[in-house]
């Protein structure tokens, strides 16, 4: 077991990702945040809260998206569905998809399919905490990355939001 991002580093990383998003998207008039269920929402909650703390007067649009019904492995493994709450229109908006670990890219593929069923976004960007490069099965790359790591298939990356820290098994 190896700690990839410690508690202190994680706070800094979330701050940095938030500032990168501010740099590219301020004043957030046409930007919405979508956290991917089930685990991406923990990062999304923190990023949205960090931006809100810097601009308390801004009304940020933040939704949660479940991709269970869009998975390509229904016949292999059954996943339990989580709640989707998107209470705004994403038509012509810049959407920032937020997830914790980018691995094969299949979750993000499903996420984009699910997202496009809510409308035609102007642009979709991807923000992840950990990018496991060299493990991709689809041509998908993040726009904002907390940390890029090299790992092999048998290893597991766990984001523990209770501590919080990121570890590699």
């Amino acid at each position, binding site marked *: 077991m190896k700690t990839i991002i410690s508690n202190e580093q994680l706070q800094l990383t979330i701050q940095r990702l938030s500032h990168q998003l501010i740099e590219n998207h301020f004043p957030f008039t046409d930007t919405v945040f979508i956290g991917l269920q089930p685990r991406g929402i923990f990062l999304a909650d923190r990023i949205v809260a960090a931006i809100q703390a810097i601009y308390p007067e801004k009304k940020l649009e933040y939704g949660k998206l479940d991709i269970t019904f869009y998975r390509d492995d229904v*016949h292999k493994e059954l996943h339990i*569905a989580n709640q989707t709450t998107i209470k705004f229109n994403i038509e012509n908006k810049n959407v920032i998809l937020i997830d914790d670990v980018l691995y094969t890219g299949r979750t993000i593929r499903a996420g984009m399919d699910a997202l496009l069923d809510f409308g035609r976004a102007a642009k979709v960007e991807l923000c992840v905490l950990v990018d496991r490069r060299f493990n991709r099965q689809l041509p998908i790359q993040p726009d904002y990355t907390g940390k890029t790591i090299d790992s092999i298939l048998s290893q597991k990356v766990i984001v523990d939001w209770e501590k919080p820290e990121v570890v590699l098994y």
Partner: protein
Amino acid sequence: MQLSTRHLLGIKDLTAQDIQLILDTAAQFKEVLQRPIKKVPSLRDVTIVNLFYENSTRTRISFELAEKRLSADTINFTASGSSAAKGETLLDTVNNILSMKVDLVVMRHSASGAPHFLAKHIPAAIVNAGDGINEHPTQALLDAFSIREKLGTLEGKKIAILGDIMHSRVALSNIYLLKKMGAEVTVAGPPTLIPKYLQEAFDVNVSYNIEETLRWCDVANVLRIQLERQNQPLFSSLREYNLAYGISRKLLDSLHKEIIIMHPGPINRGVELDSDVADSKQSIILQQVENGVAVRMAALYLLAGKRSEN
């Protein structure tokens, strides 16, 4: 987590966890049905045949819509106008359909146990859409979903099932489900329409007094009088039935509490339910129909997920 069974033949075979899983999944599908594009690609690789040997409006349309919303390919079969009318047996018909690579069979039949028979003889997963006077599991699930949506939970709630209990597969499925989920159940109706050993067999209360039962319950699930299944007269006339066991506005107002009125449809207006009750805001009959699609999506989705084990 997944279902403990590969067919949905009846609520009898489901565990409380299965029921919980189907209802929770249905809640997520209900959200899908509110989206601009009310469709998900989950069952893109699944082919489903709807085999209806008995008339149906709601259930057939609801299943078909559920299948389409899940992106499954569907085939519809109705007994009239098919080779069943030429004397082909049920097993032959189904085997012929399955040889065209069908994964799931949704089936309604007037013979109780027909889907159980099929389940023993064919490899596909089977969903019972009502068999004779035995079970109608998806109706009980959508009833439970609708009650849960209104009252938050089923546990400890007082549910009355009223009317023609004897001929009702909806009643039996509902009794199984409600008891498994910890609700209190009273069945009420004319003595000729309530099977004799119901109380002992299912641990439900039996009453022959509609007014008393309504005073007791939180929810009244009113069933249709099924004249087509009665071989001999079991009450003197529909008019008399309405007077003694029908639910009128006046009767409901006299209770001084707001109970929820449900009905699986089709309604015999002026027999078991008066129009001003069926169309009142206490009635959730149309919500039941709406929820039916989400619940059937959940059942089909969860059963399709079990295919790979075979």
